[in-house]
């Protein structure tokens, strides 16, 4: 049966070729979208963010409007020297700019690594407060506490963290988050270093799992 043979229940039977989404309003009240996204991914190279700055992880070209969804972001922040770095929990902010916010330079979503740990019930932060570390590691005569998450939420969490107790600073953190946020025209994902001192950096790598609507 072709599209033309369908009885006109909706008044939209003139539509023959649809390249966008087809939304169907079901009796349950839920909208069903008739197409799914093409999964793609973006692997970021080395991130290096000075205090007060942000570094791009992933962006669409604003001159070509496109629609898609961010599925998941993985982030690994670490340091190979004991000094000169910002706090991987409390200075590192994942910023997502959607649509008009890209041009406005105003993040739509901001998530500290600390927030991502909260998705997992704040397990790492709680254990750091009580010094319930799993092991220690020594780098250039500095000993850091190492925390591995015992449980990780299905939506994200911090999986590993390194804590420098004498200096009260998180030296590294590995985390991931499932966002499932949509953009209708453009998007940008960046890492922001909130530390006011430009000499204190964040260093690491990130991956964005995203999809485009066909």
């Amino acid at each position, binding site marked *: 049966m072709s599209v033309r043979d369908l009885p006109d229940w909706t008044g939209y039977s003139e539509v*023959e*070729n649809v*390249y966008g989404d087809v939304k169907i309003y079901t009796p349950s009240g839920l909208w069903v979208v008739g197409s799914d996204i*093409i999964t*793609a991914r*973006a*692997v*970021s*190279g*080395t*991130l*290096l963010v*000075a205090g007060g700055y942000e*570094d*791009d*992880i*992933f*962006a*669409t*070209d604003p*001159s*070509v409007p*496109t629609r*898609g969804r961010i599925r998941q972001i993985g982030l690994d922040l670490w340091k190979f020297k004991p000094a000169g770095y910002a706090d991987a929990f409390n200075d590192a902010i994942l910023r997502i700019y959607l649509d008009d916010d890209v041009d406005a330079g105003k993040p739509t979503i901001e998530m500290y690594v600390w927030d991502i740990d909260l998705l997992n019930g704040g397990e790492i932060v709680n254990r750091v407060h009580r010094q319930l570390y799993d092991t220690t590691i020594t780098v250039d005569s500095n000993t850091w506490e190492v925390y591995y998450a015992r449980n990780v939420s299905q939506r994200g969490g911090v999986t590993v963290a390194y804590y420098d107790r004498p200096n009260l600073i998180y030296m590294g953190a590995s985390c991931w988050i499932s966002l499932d946020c949509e953009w209708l025209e453009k998007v940008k994902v960046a890492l922001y270093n909130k530390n006011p001192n430009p000499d204190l*950096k964040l*260093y690491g790598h990130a991956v*964005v799992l*995203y999809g*485009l609507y*066909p």
Partner: protein
Amino acid sequence: MASTREVMAIVRYPGRNGYIAEIFYRIKEENRVRIVTERIIEPYEANLDKLPLDRIRWVKENARKRLEQKLKKVRKGDDLPV
């Protein structure tokens, strides 16, 4: 068979070895649609992980600017893949 080709999306991100642009083309043939992806990698001048920290941002920014020059052609439709 009549077909049209349009740029569906261009995404950019700093990869491990270079700044990367992925161009998604939507190709329409009669009532069929398919998607073709092209990837452009603009290499960094040096391995980022071996660079001093204060040079990494500079090298990435330079590669991104060179990539932007190549993308200008794509936006104009001069450089479509077959």
